[in-house]
């Protein structure tokens, strides 16, 4: 008698726990759909376009002749085909790293000056965030197809994969500690399993992204940097081989997705 009363209570308790979880997931999906319908990300694209065409730096030049891998000045589909190997610098670069290269070569700016403020805030977004939004927007409708043929590209992917699973730092965390298991989340943000192509595709197709919760346009360089901050590792260097390798690993995993960014996130 007593025992059956107990199990009935237990069942009731389970039902109470299970129902809100499902309801929460449905709400999160609905919310995600609503925020992506029309988003301020487009406003960042507009400002980015102006900055792209603005003549600045010692050489008083714009970035319009910047070669993002599809030839000088070709933006259509360029973001979706990055990171890739660039022969002129003998390096694998993602869109942001390549834009920095263009700022230095075309505009004659110093690395220090161009990278003074890679990450902005809500009151004052950074030049790189505006530019990335614009460049990424020019790839809408193109398939995500980063470079995978050149030995350097293969090396970058392998390094990225290794880094994704390598545990490090004060907490002994790897990317996979959070992004390696289904159904995990930090507060209301679901943590995608980025080693699973089916999950990685929609994620990589919508970065960079406008974050509704803090009104900022965030780029992949920032996302990787901030993940490492949350893992309490030393701060990775902006545009370094390591950050670009992690980006490369995720882009290759998300290969084949139709690019639809810049996206909108919680």
């Amino acid at each position, binding site marked *: 008698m007593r025992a059956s009363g107990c199990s009935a209570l237990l069942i009731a308790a389970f039902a109470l726990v299970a129902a809100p979880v499902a309801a929460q997931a449905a709400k999160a999906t609905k919310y995600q759909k609503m925020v992506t319908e029309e988003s301020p990300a487009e406003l960042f694209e*507009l400002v980015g376009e102006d900055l792209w065409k603005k003549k600045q730096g010692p050489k008083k030049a714009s970035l319009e002749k910047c070669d993002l891998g599809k030839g000088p000045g070709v933006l259509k589909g360029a973001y979706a085909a990055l990171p890739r190997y660039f022969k002129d610098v003998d390096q694998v670069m993602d869109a942001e790293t390549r834009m920095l290269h263009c700022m230095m070569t075309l505009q004659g700016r110093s690395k220090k000056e161009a990278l003074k403020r890679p990450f902005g805030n809500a009151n004052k977004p950074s030049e790189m965030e505006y530019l990335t939004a614009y460049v990424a927007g020019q790839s809408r409708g193109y398939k995500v197809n980063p470079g995978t043929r050149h030995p350097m590209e293969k090396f970058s992917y392998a390094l990225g994969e290794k880094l994704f699973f390598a545990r490090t730092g004060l907490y002994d965390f790897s990317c996979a500690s959070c992004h390696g298991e289904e159904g995990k989340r930090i507060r209301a943000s679901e943590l995608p399993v980025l080693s699973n192509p089916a999950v990685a595709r929609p994620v990589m197709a919508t970065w960079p992204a406008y974050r509704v919760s803090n009104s900022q346009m965030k780029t992949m360089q920032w996302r990787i940097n901030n993940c490492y901050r949350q893992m309490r590792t030393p701060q990775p260097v902006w545009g370094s081989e390591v950050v670009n390798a992690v980006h490369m690993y995720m882009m290759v995993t998300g290969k084949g997705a139709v690019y639809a960014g810049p996206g909108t996130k919680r």
Partner: protein
Amino acid sequence: MAGPMKARARMRGNYTDIRVLMSHPMETGLRKDKGKVVPKHFIQNLTVKLNGTTVVEGEISQAMSRNPVFSFRVGGAKKGDKVEISWLDNKGDTNKTETAVA
């Protein structure tokens, strides 16, 4: 001063769906930065005109998010109609944008 603004208007069966994106800090006047109150700065009035006739007049407040997005459903519009959207904030700043119903 004011950042970009973008509007779209589309026919959706028997009504027109008007959507507008605007950049604005929308400061509530309650937030502090290094101990100092960040002054109020928010959009107060929002006006939507269809071929010169006001169809929506909104009084909005600090409760709106930064870079707000609005959407309205308007009846009686047809393709090619001119939609004008403008805002006025508490500091007297203003901005407007125009689009045609598609």
